[in-house]
């Protein structure tokens, strides 16, 4: 298709915290500064900036992309903000990728920021307006309803129990204990802890859910000729995919995310991957809830329908397993600042594939990884495949 090769050459992030003193602009700048420093670049090297951030309602600031622009280094540069809900964090690197693959730019900054704590009394309130104002909102729904009902449908369809799902939360929160930016790491958490935690919206319990979080992540993307000049360890973006299902969520198969399958197939085809279960060495599926990691692993074709819990039961998903899942600690462990959480997964693959993940390093010199996010009105899938 005449597309240019694109590599990730730098990455930086802030700590993920429940409530940051820094403003959204300040968080964006901190992550961006660190990312530029990591590849020894300055703003003079940057041709364009892509910004990913979720609802304006979190900040109470209309046109948040413009508000954040100076923190992201966007002034006097081509700048665009994208937003596909929770899928944003893995969509914005795709946007950066096509800025460069198209030949339009050589070096692009990809910034993702979220500050959820400003919304009072709880960030969940910002999500109420995702429900249809006429046919749903008069029923006074809350966001947990959707997740709880999707989780229940997934469990019922395949005969999966809470005991099958809890190991996801346990593995991710334990993995996060090795992440220096993690908010909810717990090296000692057990399945019993998850099963005994407070019931919020059955089947969702407290430890099945990722927390409200503030934080920012930035990566630097470069065309091949630049990437080879600035680093001897470029990590290439080998495949991208994104796909949308119906916004009438009650008209959809809630047990299986077909939109994730379509996004994954697009990315596998571009990356020329025929057998994903053998060719993907690390996977960072989107895990705002523990069952979502399983749901997405099945959509990504990395497990048969209804069988993803086995990856956790037999050790395949462990950091030293055959296909480590969320070695970062994921959203459940590191935290879930919506857009920044997805880009954190891309940054994790960058560090893992370069062998720079420190205590979190997956053994065996992994060659290829996949990051995925999900969002909008529960029906967008975004996928990036990276390799070295």
């Amino acid at each position, binding site marked *: 298709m005449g597309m240019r090769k694109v590599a990730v050459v730098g990455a930086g992030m802030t700590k993920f915290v429940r409530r940051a003193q820094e403003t959204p602009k300040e968080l964006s700048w901190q992550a961006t500064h660190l990312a530029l420093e990591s590849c020894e670049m300055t703003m003079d090297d940057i041709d364009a900036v892509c910004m990913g951030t979720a609802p304006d309602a979190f900040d109470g600031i209309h046109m948040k992309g413009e508000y954040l622009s100076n923190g992201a280094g966007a002034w006097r540069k081509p700048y665009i903000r994208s937003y596909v809900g929770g899928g944003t964090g893995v969509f914005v690197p795709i946007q950066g990728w096509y800025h460069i693959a198209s030949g339009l730019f050589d070096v692009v900054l990809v910034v993702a920021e979220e500050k959820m704590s400003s919304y009072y009394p709880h960030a969940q309130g910002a999500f109420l307006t995702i429900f249809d104002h006429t046919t749903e909102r008069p029923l006074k729904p809350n966001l947990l309803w959707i997740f709880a009902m999707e989780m229940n449908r997934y469990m019922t369809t395949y005969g999966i129990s809470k005991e099958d799902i809890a190991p996801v939360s346990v593995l991710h929160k334990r993995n996060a204990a090795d992440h220096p930016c993690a908010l909810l790491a717990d090296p000692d958490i057990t399945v019993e802890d998850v099963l005994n935690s407070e019931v919020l919206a059955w089947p969702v319990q407290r430890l099945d859910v990722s927390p409200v979080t*503030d934080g920012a992540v930035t990566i630097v993307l470069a065309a091949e000729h630049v990437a080879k000049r600035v680093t001897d360890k470029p990590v290439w973006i080998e495949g991208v995919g994104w796909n949308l299902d119906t916004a009438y969520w009650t008209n959809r198969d*809630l047990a299986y995310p077909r939109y994730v399958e379509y996004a994954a197939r697009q990315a596998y085809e571009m990356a020329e991957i025929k057998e994903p279960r053998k060719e993907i060495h690390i996977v960072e599926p989107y895990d705002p809830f523990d069952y979502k990691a399983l749901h997405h692993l099945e959509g990504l074709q990395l497990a048969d329908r209804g069988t993803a819990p086995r990856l956790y039961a037999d050790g395949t998903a462990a950091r030293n397993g055959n296909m480590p899942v969320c070695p970062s600690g994921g959203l459940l462990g590191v935290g879930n600042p919506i857009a920044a959480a997805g880009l954190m997964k891309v940054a994790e693959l960058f560090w893992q594939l370069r062998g720079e993940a420190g205590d979190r390093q997956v053994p065996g010199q992994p060659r290829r990884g996949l990051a995925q996010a999900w969002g909008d009105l529960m029906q967008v899938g975004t996928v990036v495949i990276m390799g070295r």
Partner: protein
Amino acid sequence: MTINIKHFPGTPLSEKDFSTGKILFNYDELRGDFAWDTGIAIGRYLSGLKAGVLVGTRCPTCRKVVIPPRTVCEWCFRPMDEYVELKDTGTVNTFSLCYVTWDVQRISEPELPAVIEIDGASPLHGIMHVLGEVDPQQVHVGMRVKAVWKLAEERQGAITDIRYFKPFQVTD
């Protein structure tokens, strides 16, 4: 990173930092008032509710019957202008027992949201509503339910014209 970056930025705060005045902050309330037009298809849906009937639309191309009604079939991208009356009974596709409100306040009696596949609509096609007149522990996927309507004179053309769905036996 972890091996190349020694210090990560970001300063965590606690609730105490606010209550003790360590952190200065500005509190404000934003308010927006709206009047949403119902549109063509949802207008029909609401007038159906006022009359005590659930209305869906049928796609002449793929023959799918959907609820709530819409003017375009999102699968075929063809007009969907055949309105059909559906039954006010259905099957619980999924549900939750929810013990928290929208602002994460705890409640002792759970709310019972459910997706209900409406009889006469295509498989897996449902609406979100709530269940009532049922022991929360008895609710299950596959349970047959029927709409409990407000009295005709109280109905306003709103989704809340159905108070809730309750279990029913075929012999009822």
